């Protein structure tokens, strides 16, 4: 990148040196994603502009689109939707495809149980997302963007639509953005309440007005996406990182958080903690730190039993396995995944059979029905779990549960089925005894 820049001096930032990340120390970080959200009018365009908003737009337009992609590549930004795919690389794939028009789609479906991290951006800081979308659209030369919004977020829809209207009024959106002869239009499309529509290809199907079911990959959306055209699907949080990368520069950005996986991250903590909520913290902070230092520890002084670290689809970790750095690269080494960064905390009074049953009820309900193992398997698992939880477990049920989930695992069309099987496999691995006791005692041992 050839431009000099004024901002982005790393010294001036509350960036987190890598050495402190496993500490228990409270980390005070300057807010990037949730900046200004204490302001009750934070969603208003003027408030956003007052705190420096939309400044990065004109700055980005000074670069060539390719250079913006390079900068994002260099920043090390990874997708926050769950899979952690390097964002700049994804963009360059779409950029390399000669087909036009290209589309940019913001994944705001936020359906993973336990996840509510995108919500504060959508409801409190919509202009950050919009600015991110415009810059990203410029980078990949897309003239149309869509925000695919979770059906159950009616308030966010209102906020977004108002924000988009304001952005049009101020000429940040339209046929001639900022008079720079750059075209970018944006619209909100609301889903109808299907978890699978968070999966990018199912999302595209739904966006096209079809039934939301995943498509065969390859071809990937970067080549054949919405209406057959190159399409980038990025998570809300991912796109909201982009203005700051432009502002601070890739180098400064890459200093925040983990080395292999930098940047700020929104962690949403729910369950048995004193202070559940959304926390903006650097990537790579330890799970223990999040729970005990930031979320105030376990509620009512109870003992921690287990944590689901990244949304229901990620494997459960028992209480003694929480000293792991929460980022995309480290978590798999510790037996789970970062996923959406949705930390679900369970104390000693929580029945793990019931948790498993509830999870499978969710997956059964949300299985799109396309592939046999997920469609039939989740239903079967739920039926067995329901019996066990109700005290009607039978001998052999545990083996059957394990067998059925192993059979689903790795054979489904998309990761939803794998996730469902993973919950059972993880729970049986760490809490098999609870299942055994349920069956032996013919009742739930916690109620």
């Amino acid at each position, binding site marked *: 990148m050839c431009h000099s820049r004024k901002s982005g001096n790393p010294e001036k930032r509350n960036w987190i040196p890598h050495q402190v990340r496993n500490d228990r120390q409270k980390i005070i970080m300057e807010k990037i994603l949730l900046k200004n959200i204490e302001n009750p009018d934070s969603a208003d365009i003027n408030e956003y502009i007052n705190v420096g908003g939309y400044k990065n737009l004109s700055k980005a337009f000074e670069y060539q689109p390719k250079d913006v992609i390079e900068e994002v590549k260099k920043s090390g930004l990874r997708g926050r939707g769950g899979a952690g795919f390097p964002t700049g690389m994804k963009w360059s794939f779409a950029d390399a495809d000669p087909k036009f028009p290209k589309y940019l789609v913001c994944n705001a479906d936020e359906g993973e149980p336990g996840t509510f991290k995108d919500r504060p951006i959508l409801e409190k800081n919509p202009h950050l997302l919009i600015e991110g979308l415009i810059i990203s659209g410029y980078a990949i030369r897309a003239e149309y963007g869509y925000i695919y919004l979770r059906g159950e977020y009616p308030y966010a829809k209102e906020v977004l639509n108002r924000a988009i209207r304001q952005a049009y009024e101020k000429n940040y959106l339209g046929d001639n953005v900022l008079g720079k002869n750059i075209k970018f239009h944006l619209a909100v499309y609301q889903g109808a309440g299907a978890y699978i529509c968070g999966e990018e290809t199912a999302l595209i199907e739904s966006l096209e007005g079809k039934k939301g079911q995943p498509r065969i990959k390859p071809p990937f959306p970067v080549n054949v996406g919405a209406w057959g055209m190159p399409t980038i699907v990025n998570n809300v949080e991912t796109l909201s990182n982009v203005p700051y990368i432009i502002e601070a520069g890739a180098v400064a950005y890459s200093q925040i958080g983990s080395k292999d996986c930098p940047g700020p991250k929104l962690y949403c903590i729910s369950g048995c903690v004193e202070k559940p909520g959304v926390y903006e913290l650097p990537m790579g902070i330890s799970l223990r730190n999040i729970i005990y230092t930031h979320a105030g520890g376990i509620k009512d002084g109870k003992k921690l039993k287990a944590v689901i670290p990244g949304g229901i689809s990620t494997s459960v970790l028992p209480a003694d396995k929480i000293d792991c750095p929460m980022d995309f690269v480290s978590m798999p080494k510790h037996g789970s995944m970062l996923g959406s960064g949705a930390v679900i905390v369970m104390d000693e009074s929580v029945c793990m059979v019931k948790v498993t049953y509830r999870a499978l009820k969710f997956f059964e309900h949300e299985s799109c029905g396309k*592939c*046999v193992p997920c469609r*039939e398997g989740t239903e*079967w698992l739920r039926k067995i779990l329901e019996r066990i939880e109700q005290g009607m477990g039978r001998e052999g049920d545990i083996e059957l549960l394990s067998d059925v989930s192993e059979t689903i695992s790795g054979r489904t069309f998309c990761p939803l089925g794998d996730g469902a099987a993973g919950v059972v496999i993880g729970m049986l691995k760490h809490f098999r005894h609870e299942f055994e006791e349920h069956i032996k005692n013919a009742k739930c041992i916690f109620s």
Partner: protein
Amino acid sequence: MITININEKEIRLDKPVTVLEAARTAGIKIPTLCAHELLEAYGGCRLCVVEVERMLKLQTACTLIAADGMVIRTKSEAISNARRSILEFLLINHPLDCPVCDKAGECELQDLVNKYGATAGRFKEEKRKVPESHEDRIFTRNMERCVLCTRCVRMCNDVQGASAINIVGRGGRSRMEPFSPTSFNCEYCGNCLTVCPVGAILSRPHLHSLRPWQIDKEVETICPYCGVGCSFVVQVRDESIKRVIPRFGFGLNNGLLCSRGRFGYEVTGSQERIKVPLVRIDGKLHQSTWDYALNLIADKLKDIRDTHGGSAIAGIASPRCTNEDNYVFQKFMRMACKTNNIDSISRIGFASAQRYFEDLLGQGITANIILGLKNSDIILVLGGDPTAVNPILGLSIRAAARNGTKIAVIGNAKGLERFKTLRIVPDIFKEAEVLEYLLTEIFRAKGLRGEKPALDRKIEGLSGKSLKIDIAGLAELKDVLLSGGSVSIVLGMDVVHRSRGHRILFAVAGITYLLEARLYLLSESSNEQGLIDMGCVPDMLPGGRPLVVGDFKKRFETVWKGTIPEKGGLTLMEIIEATKDKKIKVLYVMGENPVFNLPNTSYVKEALKSLDFLVVQDIFLTETAELADVVLPASGWSEKDGTYTNLERRIQLLRKAVNTPSSADDWRTISEISSKMGYEMHYPRAEDIMEEIATVSPLYKDLTYDEIEKGNCLWPYNGEPLRGVVSEIPAAEETFREYKEGLYLAPEKILFHSGTLSRRALALRKICPEPTLKIGTNHAEKLGLKEGDNVSVSTAQGSINVQVSIDTAIKDNKVLLGNNFEGRGVFSLLNYEIDPITKVPGIEGCEVTIEKI
């Protein structure tokens, strides 16, 4: 070149295909369920898993594209386990009611479980319950048996283009459902049914009638309904046709069928068939013996021929009869009856149009491959809805549209509404003006081709006229046609039966010529083309040899051993008029119903009543047969061997599946009469007739049934076209008529019926039991009409009562009615005026009043 390795076998591929396809071509079997050769990959069932080196998980062969160097195994412990568990998953909620399921014996799930096994009895929970649905007239849905492979949905949406069904609901609650609340209300092609691997969609006409293994025989034959000529298999038990099933991988339809082809098979099994000859005594038809009836006919014909000459006799051939029947019929007319007065109902459309185009552009100009439509950049459709007249040809247009071909419709083609790129609606009956405008614009942009002087001259002459037309979309259409892509023109007969239809035909010929377009004529009956090729036209011998060329005539006379009358014969409407004038005294009608199928029914009826003697050879006692002096039972399509020639001029084999109730072959009946009249004709088998055709017809040279069976006998088979083009294009005085604001009646070709034949197909009558009058939204509103209202439709010719159906695609002031149902055919309400050039009865401009009753 891509080289992959499957089970230690090296396979070379020219292009990237799926691993499944690669394995199949190498003869390696991989079990599948959701995959189907006609459908895009889906990847839902997960049964086709294989191991691929350096890939962690098992991969589905139907979705994985083979890449160079891939090493694949289709058999291993892990693969067997995966397959077995998939089958177990499929069975846990399956009702396992094979003993009462029609599909048992041909069910893919049954076969798979048999072969790849399932773990038994681990599912102890309650199964999902869904009641069987009988709400539709034709399809039964049993969603407990459904494996949710979506083959039906993909077929309906991606191939048929009807988009009538989908999977609703999610996960285990998913069901295949039609979009309309109760019935399917679709095109009823039944292609969904044939791709369903299990007994989840079944045909009610066939329901519980028999088991697949109880079939006595399966016969590969051709559909009797339209000029496409789809291949299929009929299944026979106890001398009756039980079902029509597809022949995937064969014929131009490759397993696809339309509603008529799939469900119309009951016709020949009808109880109403004529089984013995009927002879009129004292004004009434009485049963008679064959001998008596045939002698009577032979004597009468001989008598008239000898006293009044052959010109007092005429014959009407049949586009539903085989080439062999028609060949023998025209030979009988020419050699035994000594007349060239032979024509067919095809005169009112296909035969005239083809003749006109061949005169201008050369023989064979309309012989274009249906599947080739897919390769056009632009398809111009006018004169009818291809998806209703020739449904499988219509599918080629829809497929082309999906591939990006531009579809331009002039007028109305409802089945292409969702597939068209643009549509223009000319002022009522003013297509000629629009086409002439396009022709002159094309001429201005591209100049003449200089290959056909007569045509060039006339095009140039036309451009002198100043044409000012202002129709939405016309300029765009002109640009599209001139954009340089390859053009196909699909012409329906609605613009041919016009009193000045030759103007339209000329403009189409000119456009075809200047744009070097491919021309397709829609053909309503199965053997319209064959009929022409066999010489069932007044001025042409078999093979399209003009009667007036002495050399040709002599060659035929040598083979036929006799003399062919010199004088050219009368065309169809001329025959009717000559009948009325008593110039024709005997009419022999083979497999046709002119009283119902020609305009101005009462006039035609009067004409036939004034005959000395009327012979009708038919399978039913039709409106025409009721007037006959002798009615001879004919054989139906499923009861004879023979050949049909389809609209692209593909010659195909028809196979006898069941016996005729009357045990008479049409050609044999005619040969017998001929022999009785002194002109001997003896053919042991239909095949022997083809042998003769192959010697006399330059278009079917050396053709044998063995060759036809292989499936690719296209025009001109081994032969060559010989007829040149005309040096002067005939012209007629132009007439101008203004059409007022009122409503005008026009015929509609409906999808679910074919002429009057399909009346007796019970399933088709269930789908479409009643004639309906189609009217555009605007006019319906003006008249205060709602869907289903009963109205009386009146013209100067008469009046009939029908139900109204509102058709959003109709944008002009036409109302449409079909010509299918007893006593309620559109032709009975239409008058006609003959086009002086094409000799087609023009039936446009018939004002109509509609009153609610």
